[in-house]
């Protein structure tokens, strides 16, 4: 596996390409044009870029108004501000009123690791999962990002996309099928499954390589869409492997892990199960990679979690 670009770069490139051919595609920013790598977009298509100043609530409200007229609107700002400060605008003006804004949370999760908790978004999956009529996608790599941005254009519901700003490992072959709501199995396996989302998929894929050296067969699923959820992919993994580990760049409360747990319970499935994410504590700070390692979202950490979990679970 090789490193590609940052998902942020792919987002900005893809959007410029699409918007060049469609003048109804608009970008709205809140002093976030540079952070969104949208400088070239604003230069090339100045009439398709709207700037509202440092005002995220206003950003989402204005985007919803624009979208109400049939425009394809991308509201772009750091995930931490967009999904906290502008949450009510997302809930009422976008989701409830069904204005199909594409809410784009950049530098998501702990991308701004050293800037502290004001700049982390550990809550966005949980907050948006509980809002009706908005879907949630977190692409893992450049391929998924490009495909998700393309799919967003004609997508029939309000949509939230979130990603980070560091170069990502390329995880997929170019001919992979991407569909919002359909998980991608990156690697087949029969002992344990990593169900991961967004930028936490790459460490899970690398952990699977380590586990293979120990003779442990690991399935890796990129659950890029948290809502609507691909139930079949999870249930199949629970049937085929005896341990499940969910991995997310998010609080352990209310995200992918708890989504999976509730589904397994409802189906009376009880594999060995572990949710890997951020606990309820004063967050460690540092780079995204350092914070990942600190909380075990690393190849070593995840491989260890898998071995420990398998040891606790007798073979079926």
């Amino acid at each position, binding site marked *: 596996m090789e490193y590609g670009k940052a998902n942020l770069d792919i987002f900005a490139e893809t959007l410029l390409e699409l918007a060049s051919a469609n003048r109804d595609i608009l970008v709205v*920013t*809140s*002093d*976030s*044009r*540079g*952070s969104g790598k949208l400088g070239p977009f604003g230069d090339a298509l100045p009439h398709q870029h709207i*700037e*509202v*100043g*440092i*005002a995220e*609530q*206003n950003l989402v409200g204005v985007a919803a108004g624009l979208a109400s007229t049939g425009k394809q609107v991308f509201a772009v700002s750091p995930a*931490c*501000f967009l999904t*906290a*400060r502008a949450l009510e605008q997302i809930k009422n003006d976008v989701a409830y009123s069904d204005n199909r804004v594409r809410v784009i949370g950049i530098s998501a999760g702990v991308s*701004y690791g*050293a*800037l*502290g*908790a*004001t*700049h982390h978004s550990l809550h966005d999956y949980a907050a948006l999962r509980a809002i009706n009529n908005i879907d949630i996608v977190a692409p893992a790599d450049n391929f998924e990002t490009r495909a998700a941005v393309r799919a967003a254009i004609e997508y029939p519901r309000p949509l939230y996309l979130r990603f980070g700003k560091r170069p990502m490992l390329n995880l997929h072959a170019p001919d992979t099928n991407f569909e919002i709501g359909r998980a991608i199995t990156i690697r087949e396996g029969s002992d344990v499954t990593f169900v991961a989302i967004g930028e936490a998929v790459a460490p899970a894929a690398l952990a699977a390589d380590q586990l293979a050296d120990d003779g442990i067969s690991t399935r890796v699923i990129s659950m890029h869409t948290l809502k609507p959820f691909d139930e079949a992919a999870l249930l199949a993994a629970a049937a085929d492997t005896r341990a499940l580990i969910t991995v997310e760049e998010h609080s352990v409360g209310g995200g992918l892990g708890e989504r999976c747990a509730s589904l397994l319970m409802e189906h009376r499935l009880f594999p060995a199960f572990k949710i890997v994410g951020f606990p309820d504590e*004063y967050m*460690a*700070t*540092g*780079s995204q990679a*350092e914070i990942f390692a*600190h909380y075990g979202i690393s190849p070593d950490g995840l491989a260890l979690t898998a071995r420990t979990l398998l040891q606790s679970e007798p073979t079926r």
Partner: protein
Amino acid sequence: MQAHEMLLKSVAYRRSVLKMIKTSQAGHTGGSLSCLDILNVLYNYVMNVSPENFHDPNRDRYIQSKGHSVEALYAVLADKGFFPEDDLQTLNQYQSHYIGHPTRKVNGVEQNTGALGHGLSLAVGTALAAKLDQRSYRVFTLLGDGELAEGSSWEASMTAVHYKLDNLTVIIDRNRLQITAGTEDVNRLEPLHAKFMAFGYAVHQCDGNDIVGLMHTFDHLPFAPGKPSLILANTTKGKGISFMEDTVKWHHRVPTDAEYEIATRELDAQEAELKAVNSGVR
């Protein structure tokens, strides 16, 4: 403290800010340099706060709403003795408490800030508590000009005026730049003075990088009985380093080795000049 001593401190603080940012390879250079003289006057001339009285309920409070300029705050707090200056070499490193925005894990910091548009409401609440308890402490808060696009600042302004918080002083770091471009190009703010007047503040304008002028302005607090005071401090983003001044890209750029060298020489020259003036050589 004498103006001359404070002028020398500003040079030292600028050195400290640049060193921190250079070492950690991250930071908000321009905004820290623009508000540094204001912090200098607040902590060394205006406010009754020190490591000794930091837990005294009667201390004056400072809440930095433009949290990204934390390097300026760290430089001043270290100099005041809240923590050893050497600690700052860990800025932004793994598990250091000295992160890129103010946090109460650091001694001397009143509130955790960093998301813009929060400080003024916090300051209003803190000032209101003084009124309720008939305490004499004062509350100061510093906002960026780009930050004023956040509606919450205007909501808080209405509360401040409504409750006649003349123990509250709001300082606007009017450097006319934000991340993307000039404030008037991004999202027009003017006529700013008239807006603040209309909201009911007692407003004073001054040069926010002029130590003596700032001392004089703060001497007049509160500007009017029964009104919150607002200082529209006209500043230069990147103040003190020629090539950083009034330049958008220095919002959060880190100096290269060569740039750091030039900046250090400019600060050396400023220091030498101040010392020469004082000893009567010139």
